[in-house]
């Protein structure tokens, strides 16, 4: 599904290298997790993959289903099936959540040459999906993320994911700022989307999210590289011993 090879990235504005040769291969239908200490480059990886400005790729490639994505506009990547659940979802005053979602769904359909969703059909689908995530009608009507609590924002991200039905979902610290109940709700939303044709890359500091979203593969990232890869057990090891031991071991 996603093949990242030798990815090197620096900040556009300054000579700071963040990613120093990331290699990652995610098969269709699998869930990978990336853990790592602060400043290891986890979030940068998610931003670079989704096409956010401010970064410069100096080497390497990233292919989604065989298609090179690093030269694409963010909207093209989205239409190709990539989705990033933001660590800090953006508030957009004046744009209704529903309008936003319908515009996004139909823009992607249009880009793929599919027919646009009628408003009746859209309403039917979104109501059902919102209900599963305990998102009420009021939240759908309000401006995007404005006045939403931390938990509401994250649930709204998962709702967008459910509506857009991407192939490759990247979750950037989706557990940050969530209490246990909210985390369960979000994890259930993610698990409901697990599918043979859909892959996940879950970025997190803590193992607890991985109790709810069980990963097939866990990677440890440090100083801009993947330094260790293992099974779900690796996350437990981090939880018990911290990163220091692992980092010392690979150093």
């Amino acid at each position, binding site marked *: 599904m996603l093949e990242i090879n030798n990815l090197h990235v620096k900040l556009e504005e300054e000579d700071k290298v963040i990613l120093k040769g990331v290699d990652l291969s995610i098969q269709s239908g699998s869930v990978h997790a990336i853990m790592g200490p602060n400043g290891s480059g986890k979030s940068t990886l998610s931003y670079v993959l*989704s*096409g*956010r*400005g401010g970064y410069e790729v100096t080497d390497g490639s990233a292919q989604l289903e065989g298609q090179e994505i690093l030269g694409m*506009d*963010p*909207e093209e*990547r*989205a*239409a190709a099936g990539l*989705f*990033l659940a*933001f660590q800090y*979802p*953006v*508030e*957009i*005053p*004046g*744009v209704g959540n529903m*309008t*936003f979602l319908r*515009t*996004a*769904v139909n*823009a*992607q359909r249009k*880009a793929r040459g599919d027919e646009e969703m009628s408003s009746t059909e859209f309403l039917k689908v979104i109501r059902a999906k919102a209900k599963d995530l305990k998102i009420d009608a009021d939240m759908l009507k309000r*401006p*995007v993320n404005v006045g939403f609590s931390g938990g509401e924002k994250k649930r709204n991200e998962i709702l*967008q994911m459910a509506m*857009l039905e991407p192939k490759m979902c990247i979750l950037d610290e989706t557990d940050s700022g969530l209490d246990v109940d909210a985390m369960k709700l979000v994890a259930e939303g993610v698990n409901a989307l697990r599918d043979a044709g859909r892959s996940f890359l879950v970025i997190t500091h803590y193992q607890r999210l991985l109790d709810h979203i069980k990963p097939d593969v866990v990677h440890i990232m440090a100083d801009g590289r993947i330094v260790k890869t293992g099974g779900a057990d690796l996350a437990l090891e981090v939880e018990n011993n911290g990163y220091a031991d692992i980092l010392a071991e690979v150093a």
Partner: protein
Amino acid sequence: MSALKQRKLDATQARLAGLEMPTGPGAWISTARADAMARLRTMGLPSRHDEYWKYTRPETLVQDHPVPAAVFQYDEAPMFDAVDRLRIVFVDGVFDPEASDDLTLEGVEIERLASASRSDVHPVGTLYGKLETTGQTPVERPLATLNTAIATDGVLVRVTQTPSRPINLIYRHLDVNSDVYLHHVIKVETGASVTLLESGPAAARFNKVMEVDVADDAMFHHVRTQGRDHERRAATHLFARLGTRSVFKSFTLTVNGVLTRNETVLELTGDDAVAHLAGACVGDGDFHHDDTVFVTHDAVNCESRQVFKKVLRNGATGVFQGKILVRDGAQKTDGYQISQALLLDGDSQFMAKPELEIYADDVACSHGSTSGAIDEEALFYLRSRGVPESQAQDLLVLAFLAEAIDEIEHQAIGDEILDRLTGWLKRHRG
């Protein structure tokens, strides 16, 4: 007298000397015109040295001939076409009975200024120039006085009940050299209410005054659209007095225009009155738009709200000069003012001068003014969900304008304004 003032008055004399004073229809208008002419000779026409003309050059509005303006060819349905309304059409400033609807409408009396009753106690005509005169203090508005002195056409409207349809003043522009002075007087009687729409490009140079007297418990809703003609120059004045528990709501959409100066002067004279003023404008390139507002609170427990939003690109210029004056004794005043510009590039500029002057001690007044670029974070967020950049930008621009558009009372009209703006944005990308 200073040399500067003397030069200004000499220039004004020279400009007025060439004018032919109109006559009729009644004694009330002759008196008002003569009075306006006398006032104009002592105040002088605006010059760039005036405090309130610092950001907008008045020369082309003052000079004896208009700068010619090409007639704009529209490629879309006329504004408000879907609204069931009474149309009053002016072609280059002259009332066109053929193009207009029958002026009879229950609950309202409409007369053309040029042929109004000669009666010396005309119920509306005797208000001609009155609010314009009181609106000169403390800030002079000489272009409005010039209008009072020489306007020959317009409407006198007396609203006695609540007419079933809005009234739409439609301004057509056919002559590239037209220089138009229109003067409307509207009196909304106690308990009555009316919706007034204005649309159309009007003239090469358009000077318009509207005086609105809103009596106790009356309501006046106003929606105006200016554009899409590019070459027009316009100076408009809206003067209003608000009685007890009256409601006044006015929204203006401005698209394109080399030079537009919209002045609004409101006086809240009755307790518990509500005044909402809003404006949305979009300009690309050779565009200069100036909103100059003066709201005076002279009664207890009144609310005034000003929401002005400007979207500017390719060197377009926006100006906002807005003042709230709370007089001694106008307690429990709730005054709000926001003026914001969205600059879509580094070439455009916005100049704002918000002012508060408060002489009462129990009031809540707030004002804010900002100018900024498109929120890059929001743009990326939308694009990351698959919304193409141009569409995402349009969504954010419309979101920025939403607070002003939300002031429009009628949903269908608000939706039409949004459609027009969406169309404009599509035509002005990149």
